[in-house]
């Protein structure tokens, strides 16, 4: 009787310890420590594009949003821009919006870049890094695929091929 009780006690203590150790190791090595992760609601933001129109993310509910963070100096960003531009033409009609957030460069530089590639989607400038902070952007480019409910479907860092861009836009089609 006592013996059985003792075994139960020991098992419980050991399981608790195992759970604590397991959780620590798991949390440290296998999980993202940020709140910006797949499945979370994309933080809302409001930025102004080159033409002076404001864009608010929550206004795009019901549409898929292809949210791309980029800079003019970033070569991989430059490479994928034409692909995004091409695919945008096809998917705009299907309810996919592209928002390209420039990471706070002078309007002049951004405008030059937009003109050079003939970008047709809205390009907004995050002048004070607020949106960058909210999305915890580290490397450029980083693309967030946001579905019609405003949830993050995927986070892509690094450059994309045209094929990939197409695939991603397809995936967030409402």
């Amino acid at each position: 009787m006592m013996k059985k009780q003792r075994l139960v006690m020991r098992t419980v203590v050991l399981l608790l310890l195992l759970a604590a150790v397991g959780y620590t190791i798991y949390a440290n090595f296998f999980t993202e420590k940020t709140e910006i992760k797949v499945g979370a609601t994309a933080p809302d933001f409001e930025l102004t594009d080159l033409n002076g129109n404001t864009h608010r993310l929550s206004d795009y509910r019901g549409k898929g949003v292809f949210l791309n963070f980029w800079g003019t100096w970033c070569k991989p960003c430059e490479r994928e821009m034409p692909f995004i531009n091409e695919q945008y033409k096809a998917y705009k009609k299907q309810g996919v919006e592209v928002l390209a957030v420039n990471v706070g460069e002078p309007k002049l530089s951004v405008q030059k870049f937009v003109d050079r590639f003939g970008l047709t989607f809205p390009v907004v400038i995050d002048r004070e890094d607020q949106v960058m902070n909210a999305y915890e952007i580290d490397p450029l480019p980083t693309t967030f695929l946001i579905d019609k409910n405003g949830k993050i479907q995927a986070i892509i860092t690094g450059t994309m091929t045209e094929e990939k861009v197409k695939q991603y836009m397809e995936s967030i089609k409402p």
Partner: protein
Amino acid sequence: MEQVKCECGHVNPYGTAFCEACGKPLEEVEKPLLDMRYEGSARRSQTYNKTVIDKIWNFFSSVKVGVWLIVITLIASAIGTIFPQKMYLPPNVTPAQYYEDEYGWAGKLYYELGFDNLYGSWWYMLLIALIGVSLVICSLDRVIPLYRALNNQGVTRHDAFLRRQRLFSATKIEDARLLEAIKERLAKRRYHIREENGNILAEKGRFSRWGPYVNHIGLIIFLIGAMLRFVPGMYVDKVLWIREGETKEIPGTNGEYFLKNEKFTFETYQKGKENAVFNAAIDRVGSGMVAKTYETKAVLYKRVGPVIAGEEPKLKKIKEYKIRVNEPLKYDHYALYQVDFKLNELKSMSFALIDKQTSKSFGMITVDLLQPKESYDLGNGYRVELLSYFPDFYFDDDGNPNTKSRVPNNPAFVFKMYAPDKPKGEVSFVAIRQTIEPFGNNKYKMAFAGIDTRNVSALTVRRDFTLWVLGIGGAVFMIGLIQGMYWNHRRIWLKQTNGEVWLAAHTNKNWFGLKREIQAVIDGTGITMPIDQAEIAKKAQGGDEHGTA
């Protein structure tokens, strides 16, 4: 369940070395002295050893295993200091490359074994975790039986128990008042006295026996605090680079707080301006070589209304503060620390539009390097347009001017200069100490006319909700340590038997102090000073002192 009933009537758990109540040895041992370490109590782990759970339990409850874990951790920690850890490497180096370049094959091996991030490795963490497990189980396994034993101890002890204490004496003496006198003296020395049939148990400092368990609890709390670090939201660690005059969102605060950098100051110790006693030291390294102050004069703001990233925020001033090393700005669990700086970052550049031949100036323009304007009207038909701007200019692989970043480290401009005699304009590429005229010889030139700079301060943003847990853990640990180390548990037994007074004493540490105390207590009573049987035993072995019983 087997239990052992002692002749005194007390029922002891199986595995008890000597009776909890009277101290009669229950197991025959040959050693002349009793092992008092855990009061002879039955350590649970050593008595049940049947199931896998018991075996795991027993493994972790062993002090030997605990010490091995400590030693392994110690050695591993030492290995981590042979070469610098990854986090202390200079920025912009590839670790793989760096270790091999700097330390040759040894560095390469170090890197390949993963020692470059030793303290963050899974196995190091596992070692610490195992120490934690060992702490919990060792403590549980010992504290309960110890509590039982100390609680159940009787006043009248078995002869064999007394005789086999390290300090023991028997005196032929018959004087009833004698014990009263001793009792009084013991009480004066703050002994807690229990009496039974003319026998005495005087005890003090028992609480020090709980010291080890208290400090282990402190360590466990500390480890739990360290564990909480990995729970999302408990811990924020960001860096904010902020220029003088800028107001920026403080990262990690979810857009709630903003900071304005009013001024950044960097001071060094200058010869002649400081206390003269510092002159020799300043001379040795050179005047202006030793940093004196890093300070950011900052204003903290809180955003009013809902947080929408990117929106122009409405701000409410909260406080002004001079952030210095050792003096972080603290508010709402956040702390902002002065960690780095960059002096004299370019803010704006001025150029004069001049005639190359005559050097006559037609006006000046000032280009803001963060938000340059596109067009600058100088009047009288003179006008300058900024076609392209490269804040951190270099020539890329295709030979085109490009920028490395958005920071104005090395600005370059493509200007188009309009003059009454050049209505179509002339294009000029201007970088620092460099002017290129891509379309041939120009008449006009943008002549460099000056710069304006400002300092940039780097602040680390921290919020750590685990600190108070760690603080409690540390405090409890210290309390336990002091409790266990600075007090000791002393017991003196006096027993009247067959016309003799037997005196035996035990302490968990500081025998020297106990002996002195006994001497003072029995002084003049005629009771024989107990002899130290540990010393006798050793001398009997021929003076060989390799360890003691």
